[in-house]
């Protein structure tokens, strides 16, 4: 009887391997996660895009749960995402921008032409804040809580589906936490 069971070993091995491979089908190799989850926004002091005389820091992000969107005019996916951000801002979602390795003039023109969903934009021409956030491309969006702690990171363009399925539930959770 025992030997009969041993004959099942290859089948078990196959099923385990098949299970891993099946899981692999739905994994995105581009999603490398983030080391920043649960950590506060890294300290920085950079000018505001809208008002270069004004200096921004982490304290400016506190107060309510918000999206922090890393974008640039050289990034075509950001253009695709922009209307969605406009809609979210229209619904009252707090959206902050980090203008990543961009030309300030081009960025300001972009905002006048396409609309400005951002409460403010941090100008990060060298990408130094980007590196400290673990940003490796654009667009990337961080979900922060009312204390400015990073709770989630999304890489790529936010669309209706991403918002509905991934971000909105988390955002509502953060709102509940904040008691708003």
């Amino acid at each position, binding site marked *: 009887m025992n030997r009969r069971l041993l004959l099942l070993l290859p089948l078990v091995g196959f099923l385990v391997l098949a299970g891993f491979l099946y899981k692999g089908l739905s994994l995105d190799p581009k999603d*490398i996660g*983030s*080391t920043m989850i649960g950590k506060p926004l890294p300290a920085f002091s950079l000018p505001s895009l809208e008002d270069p005389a004004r200096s921004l820091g982490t304290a400016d992000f506190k107060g309510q749960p918000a999206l922090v969107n890393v974008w640039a005019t050289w990034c075509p996916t950001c253009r695709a995402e922009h209307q969605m951000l406009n809609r979210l801002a229209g619904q009252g979602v707090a959206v902050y921008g980090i203008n990543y390795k961009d030309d300030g003039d081009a960025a300001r023109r972009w905002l006048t032409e396409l609309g400005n969903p951002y409460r403010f934009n941090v100008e990060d021409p060298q*990408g130094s804040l980007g*590196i400290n956030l*673990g940003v490796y*491309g654009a667009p990337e969006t961080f979900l922060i809580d009312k204390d400015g702690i990073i709770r989630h990171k999304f890489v790529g363009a936010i669309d209706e589906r991403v918002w509905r399925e991934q971000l909105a539930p988390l955002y509502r959770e953060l709102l509940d936490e904040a008691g708003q």
Partner: protein
Amino acid sequence: MKRLLSKRWLGAGLLGLSLSLGAQAAIDTYEFKDDGDRARYRTLTEELRCPKCQNQNIADSDAPIAMDLRREIHRMLGEGKSDDEIVDYLVDRYGDFVRYNPPVNARTWLLWYGPWLMLGGGLGVLALIVLRRRRPAAPGGAAASGNAGSDLSAEERARLDQLLKNSVHKNSGDQSSVDNTKADK
């Protein structure tokens, strides 16, 4: 012929030029205080993986983030940071993904030792099979393996030997007769 040749040379020259221009794009001009730093820069950029690209190190990649990270590494080398500090700086921001040489920890244990476990398992199974096959011939092993064919009394063994002998005789007899018939033809 000569014209054709010169055209070819021109083509090759242009091709070479365009290739070298392409290659130039990934070369930064960094200055180092000595050759030691230069060697460390090379090793670090070759051992660190570009987070944007799936399978390129930051030395080879043209991605903007790889360029930025090369600049950061050069800056930190200039500040006298150790290799570990530089690697930790990047791992803090981008995770273990950026290491082509990942550390041994609870998460990477299977990655490091899995292949050896598989190899050991395979060798174990192979050894088991080989031992099992050998055992019936070895004295004393027969009873343990429960092989019915070896479980004979002295009487049975004698009869078996008799049978085997007979069949061998018969066969060799047949063989010779076959040979004979062949020779006849």
